């Protein structure tokens, strides 16, 4: 016999009470775990996706939409911007670098992005196999996209208009896969990258080839294109500032003086989080309510069972148990309950997230997984043990004070 075994026997002797208490706490912990793991990953994804991008410039419209579209690739473009106008901005003295993105097509919901090599470089993406694109209609596939679409180097496909399945198919232009990227844990894992000219070509925009290109008249944004073209368009620009002053001047300059819209990834994702935050707060409040109820329930269960067990307590004292031992037995019982609840809750939280990730493809695209653990989960466990201790404090004190004589003389 040992104290732990005794405590276990007491818990098993009341299976319904024990189950209720464990489940109540587990539900609360599960909700917290779910939010914790999901939020954590979302924030990590946002941080890794926005690194190196100070400002996104797109067509006039919702700045949040521009960010969701051009950084996370989960929304539609607000429209297009003129290449000439974008070039002028790219050459601005406050801009250190500008990466053009040209969107519009997808292949089986995976977005095709026309861009330059600077874009994968921004995320430190490297090739797993094949090579980079050199000619029009050559595609380098992100790791997740390649895996989900089962694309291999040399595969051909036709893009569809828009981001959903069943859009107008551009059958006349076949893309060919020339390379596949290693996973970089960012949005480009889900993309099919090509050059900007390919996107224009699919949409029958003609590139002026009549003038011979020299270093002076080549576009600063798109290699191989004449600068100052007034017909060509891109969707957005990812801009890196040259110095901190740019953060103050550039957005205002763009919004006031051009037909373009500037959106700050940091600001917009903070705004997104504050919008999501209301829902998260409600869920969290619900979780804390569950935990409070379970704490109350554990307290009542221990308090009541102690009334039934006062003879056990007195008998244990008569057999040589010290007061401290009885105190320890009761607090151990409370902590055993909350520890079980916490472990079940953690398992449940991860399980629910795994289910959620499996059911909803978008979360898979976002790279959310249930198989990660954070230090906060250890805090949850420590907190649960503390909760168990606090709940059992009053009953344990009563056990400590058991008057052997009075109880046994009854």
């Amino acid at each position, binding site marked *: *016999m*040992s104290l732990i075994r*005794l405590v276990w*026997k*007491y818990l*098993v*002797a009341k299976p319904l009470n024990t189950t209720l208490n464990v489940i109540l706490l587990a539900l609360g912990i599960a909700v917290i775990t779910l939010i914790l793991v999901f939020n954590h990953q979302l924030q990590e994804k946002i941080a890794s996706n926005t690194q190196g991008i100070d400002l996104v410039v797109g067509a006039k419209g919702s700045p949040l939409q521009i960010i969701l579209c051009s950084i996370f690739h989960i929304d539609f473009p607000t429209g297009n911007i003129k290449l000439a106008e974008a070039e002028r901005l790219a050459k601005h003295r406050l801009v250190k670098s500008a990466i053009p993105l040209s969107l519009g097509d997808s292949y089986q919901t995976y977005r095709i992005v026309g861009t330059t090599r600077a874009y994968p470089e921004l995320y430190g993406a490297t090739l797993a196999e094949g090579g980079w694109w050199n000619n029009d209609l050559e595609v380098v596939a992100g790791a997740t996209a390649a895996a989900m679409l089962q694309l291999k180097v040399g595969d051909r496909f036709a893009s569809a208009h828009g981001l959903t399945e069943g859009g107008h198919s551009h059958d006349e232009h076949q893309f060919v896969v020339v390379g596949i990227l290693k996973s970089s844990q960012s949005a480009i894992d889900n993309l099919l990258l090509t050059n900007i000219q390919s996107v224009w070509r699919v949409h029958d925009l003609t590139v002026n080839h009549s003038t011979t290109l020299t270093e002076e008249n080549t576009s600063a944004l798109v290699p191989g294109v004449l600068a100052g073209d007034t017909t060509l368009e891109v969707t957005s620009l990812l801009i890196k500032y040259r110095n901190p002053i740019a953060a103050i001047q550039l957005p205002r300059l763009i919004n006031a003086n051009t037909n373009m819209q500037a959106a700050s990834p940091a600001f917009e994702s903070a705004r997104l989080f504050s919008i999501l935050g209301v829902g998260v707060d409600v869920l969290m409040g619900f979780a804390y309510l569950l935990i409070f109820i379970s704490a109350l329930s554990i307290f009542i269960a221990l308090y009541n069972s102690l009334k039934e067990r006062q*003879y*056990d307590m*007195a*008998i*244990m*004292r*008569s*057999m*040589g*148990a*010290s*007061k401290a*031992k009885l105190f320890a037995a009761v607090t151990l019982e409370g902590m055993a309950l909350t520890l079980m609840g916490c472990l079940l809750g953690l398992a449940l939280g991860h399980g629910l997230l795994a289910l959620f990730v499996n059911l909803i493809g978008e979360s898979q695209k976002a790279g959310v997984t249930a198989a990660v653990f954070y230090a906060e989960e250890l805090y949850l466990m420590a907190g649960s043990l503390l909760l168990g201790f606090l709940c059992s404090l009053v009953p344990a004190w009563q056990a400590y004070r058991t008057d*052997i*004589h009075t109880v*046994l*003389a009854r």
Partner: protein
Amino acid sequence: MVEVRSLSYQYPHATSISFPDFSADVGKHYLLLGQSGSGKTTLLHLVGGLLRSQQGSIRVCGTEVASLSEAALDRFRGTNLGFVFQKNHLMAALTVEENLWMAPYLAGKELKKQRAEEVLAQLGLADKRQARIQELSHGQAQRVSIARAVMNKPAVILADEPTSALDDANCEKVTELLLSVAKQNEATLVIATHDQRLKSKITHHLHLK
């Protein structure tokens, strides 16, 4: 083994009670007789160290009980004393065997499972080792509590009305068992009772008024 001298106890908010001097020798058995309310249980609890703050002297196994600290008294009780009560007070969450295991564990002694089997066999409960407490009859449960009391081979067994809830047949059996178990374990047995059926079996009597 047990020596009581000029002992009195002041009940809280009530009268004080004084007890006659007596001494119980090793291996001998004593009956504390008296009507209910005569202080049998109080005396037994004082001797067993379940109740303190008395006046006078109680020596058990040569130790002055009052001189022990609370923790030392707990240990002393676990090592030297075995208790049997009117109700069996077995721990319902545990099996028969586990109830017995509690005795050495709580007294801080090494658990010898063989000892539990041996004691249960002595009391005719060998087949009830794994039984749950709820499955036992009154008489069986009382025998289990006797088994628990002798688990640690105590020098003194204190029994408080061990037979008053039992019918004649079970009373007979339990008394025989208490005596034989005490003999096997070389323990001094002190039984507090108003049960007249025991008088003929135990010769040393102490009357409380």
